[in-house]
C-alpha cells in the first residue's frame, strides 16, 4: 500500500528505508491510523521522519501526494455531524443494483456528483441511493455500499486538517538548508574532534594491560595502573571579517562566534578579526583598532601548522583591496603585499584552511564582489554558511590532506 508514496518520500530527499516502511505498514495493520488521513499523517511522520529539520520535506511530499483529495474539503459541518452516527445497512439491500448503477463511474463523475449533491442537500439522508448519507448505496457517504464512491465523514472527517497542516509548512524554519542558530553551529563544531591520549590531564582510566603486567611483576599482589583518557587535539584559528559589507550578516556571525567560543572541546582556539581582507595586521577585537592588533607574521610564526584555519567573511570587496599593494583602504594602513598573498601565506603554512561565506552559493556569481569571491575561492575552499554546507566544510577541515 502507498508504495508510490514511499518513493515520493525518497524522491523528496527523505532517507526512508524499507524497514521503516514495513513499520508504517505494521501500524496500518494494527489500525493505528483509524482509517483517517490525519492519523496516517502523524503515524507516518513519527516513523519516517528523524529530525524536526525533515518535517518540512515530509509535509511537502505529503501535500503533493495527497493533493488531489483536497478538492473535497468544502463539505459543510452539518453533513459531517449526521455522518457521525451511521445507520446500519438495510438487510434487503440490493448490492447488484448498486454495482450496475455505480460501477462505470469515473473519478470525474464522482466528483461532479458530489458537487451537485453538496449544492442540493439540506438534511440527513440514510439508506438511500442518491444523497450523501450512511448505510446506503449512493456514491457518497460512508458505512454504505457502492463499487465506487467517495468516502465522506466517518473517521475521515478530519481529512482536511492533515492536508492543511502539510500545506502550511509549519516546520519550514527547521529545514537544514536554513541559516544557522548558535546551537546548530555548536553541534556542527563538535564534529571537529581528533582524539589522542597523549595530552596532559589526570590519569583516571584503568590500563588493563599494564595492570596485569605490574601485578605479575609484583608477585601476584594487585597493582593498579591508570592512564590519561583520550582528549581532543584539534587546534583552531578562526578569522572573522568585520568589515562594512558584513554588517547585514552580523546576526549570523555573532551566532557563529558564540558557537565557536562556547565550544570548549578544542585544545586551543584563537580568534582574530580582519577588515575585508587580511594584510599585515590581524585584530583581536571586532572593532579592528590598530592598538589591539597583532602582526600577521607573528601569528604565522607562532601558531604551528597543526592549527586548522577557518575564514569567515563575504569575500566581497573591490578587486584592488585584494590584488594591489596598498590596497588596504582601512584607516590608511599601508600594506606592502597584496591581500591575496597573505591568504596564500596562510594556505601555505596551514594544511587545513576553509572559508565560510554568509552569502548563499547560488548568488556568488552575480552578487557584488563576484570577482573577488571567485579569486579567493580559487585559493581556499569556500562554503556557504548553512547547516548542511558547513557540516560538509568541517568534515573537509578535519580530514588530513
Amino acid at each position, binding site marked *: 500500500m502507498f508504495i508510490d508514496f514511499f518513493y515520493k518520500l525518497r524522491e523528496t530527499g527523505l*532517507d526512508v*528505508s524499507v*524497514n*521503516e516502511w514495513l*513499520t508504517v505498514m*505494521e*501500524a496500518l495493520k*494494527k489500525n*493505528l491510523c483509524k482509517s483517517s488521513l490525519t*492519523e496516517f499523517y*502523524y*503515524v507516518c511522520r*513519527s*516513523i519516517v*521522519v*528523524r*529530525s*524536526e529539520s525533515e*518535517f518540512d520535506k515530509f509535509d511537502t511530499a505529503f501535500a503533493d501526494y495527497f493533493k488531489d483529495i483536497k478538492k473535497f474539503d468544502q463539505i459543510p459541518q452539518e453533513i459531517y455531524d449526521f455522518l457521525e452516527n451511521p445507520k446500519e445497512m438495510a438487510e434487503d439491500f440490493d448490492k447488484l443494483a448498486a454495482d450496475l448503477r455505480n460501477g462505470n463511474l469515473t473519478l470525474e463523475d464522482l466528483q461532479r456528483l458530489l458537487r451537485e449533491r453538496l449544492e442540493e442537500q439540506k438534511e440527513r439522508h440514510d439508506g438511500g441511493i442518491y444523497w450523501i448519507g450512511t448505510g446506503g448505496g449512493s456514491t457518497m457517504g460512508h458505512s454504505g455500499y457502492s463499487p465506487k464512491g467517495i468516502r465522506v465523514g466517518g473517521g475521515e472527517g478530519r481529512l482536511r486538517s492533515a492536508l492543511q497542516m502539510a500545506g502550511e509548512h509549519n516546520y519550514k524554519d527547521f529545514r537544514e538548508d536554513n541559516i544557522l542558530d*548558535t*546551537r546548530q553551529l*555548536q*553541534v556542527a563544531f*563538535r564534529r571537529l574532534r581528533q582524539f589522542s591520549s597523549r595530552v596532559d590531564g589526570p590519569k583516571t582510566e*584503568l590500563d588493563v594491560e599494564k595492570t596485569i603486567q605490574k*601485578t605479575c611483576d609484583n608477585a601476584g*599482589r*594487585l597493582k*593498579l595502573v591508570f592512564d590519561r583518557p583520550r582528549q581532543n587535539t584539534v587546534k583552531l584559528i578562526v578569522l572573522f571579517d568585520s568589515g562594512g559589507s558584513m554588517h*547585514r550578516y552580523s*546576526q549570523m556571525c555573532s551566532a557563529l562566534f*558564540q558557537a565557536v567560543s562556547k565550544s570548549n572541546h578544542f585544545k586551543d582556539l584563537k580568534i582574530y578579526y580582519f577588515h575585508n581582507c587580511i594584510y599585515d595586521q590581524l585584530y583581536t577585537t571586532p572593532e579592528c583598532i590598530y592598538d589591539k592588533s597583532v602582526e600577521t607574521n607573528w601569528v604565522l610564526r607562532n601558531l604551528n601548522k597543526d592549527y586548522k584555519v577557518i575564514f569567515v567573511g563575504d569575500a566581497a570587496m573591490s578587486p584592488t583591496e585584494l590584488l594591489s599593494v596598498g590596497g588596504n583602504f582601512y584607516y590608511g594602513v599601508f600594506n606592502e603585499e597584496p591581500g591575496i598573498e597573505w591568504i596564500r601565506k596562510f594556505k601555505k603554512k596551514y594544511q587545513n584552511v576553509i572559508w565560510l561565506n554568509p552569502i548563499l552559493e547560488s548568488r556568488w556569481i552575480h552578487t557584488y564582489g563576484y570577482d573577488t569571491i571567485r579569486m579567493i575561492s580559487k585559493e581556499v575552499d569556500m562554503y556557504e554558511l548553512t547547516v548542511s554546507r558547513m557540516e560538509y566544510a568541517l568534515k573537509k577541515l578535519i580530514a588530513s590532506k
Partner: protein
Amino acid sequence: MNNFNGSNEYVVSDDLMRSVNISMALEKPLLIKGEPGTGKTMLADAISKALGKKLIIWNIKSTTKAQDGLYVYDTVQRLYDSQFGTEGVNDIKKYIKLGKLGEAFNSDEQVVLLIDEIDKADLEFPNDLLWELDKMEFYIPETKETIKAKVRPIVIITSNAEKELPDAFLRRCIFHYIEFPNAEMMAEIIKVHFNNIDEYLLEKVLEAFYLIRDVRDVQKKPSTSEVIDWIQALAISGIDPDTIKETVPFAGVLLKKNEDLEAVEKAKERGFVRPRW
C-alpha cells in the same frame, strides 16, 4: 493495550499523546526532542503514573558508556577480594551488577524506561545500544547468561539535540518533536501548577513572557519552569498585573545571563518593538 491520555499533573498535546500511543503499539522507543523546559523528562514520569508502571531512569552523562546501562563487572573488587580469599570469589555473579537497561529487561512486569538526555553521551553511544533496544536482550559473556526482556519495556528517550544522533539509531525510533507551548497551552500548564491563579494576572504574565521570548538577542530563552517560578514570585509580592510588561519585575528569575538581562532591559525601553536596521 496501553493507552496514554495524559494525567492530572501533565498537560499533553494531542500530537504528543498520539506519538506515545504509536510507539507503545509498535513497541519501539519514542525519541523526544525539543527545547529545554518543554517537559521531555516529565513525560516519562507522567506515562508511568498514568499507566501505573514502575519508572526506571537512566541519566546519561558525558562519560556514560553503553555498557554501563547493561551491566558492570566489578573486576577490581573481585581481584582485591581474591587476594584476601574472601568468600564467594569464585562466584562471578556476585560481581556482575545490572545497569538500568538490564534492570528494565529483568523486571517481571512492564516498566517505563527513561533514557534521559542521550545526546550528552559520546557520539557513538547510541550506536552501541542498537541491538539491545531492537531485540531487548543482551549477553553477559562472563556468566554465559542472556538477559532478555520478559515484557518489552516502554522506552522513552530524550534529546536536547546537542549532538546529532546516528542514522541507524534514529531509524529504530518513533520521533516526536515537542514544540514550545503556545500561550493557550502554557496557560493550561500553569493552571496545573497553581490551583487558583488570577486569570488577569496570568494573561498579563504570559503576554510579557512571550514578548521576552521574542526578544531577538536573548540567547537562553526562558522556558516553562522559569515562568512558573516567575508567577510564584509575582503572586507572592502582589505586583499590579498591569505594570508587568512595563517594569518586568524579578527578571532575574526568567533570565540567567547578564547579557540577556541587558537585552531585555533595552527591549523594554523600546516597549518591545523590534528595532529596524
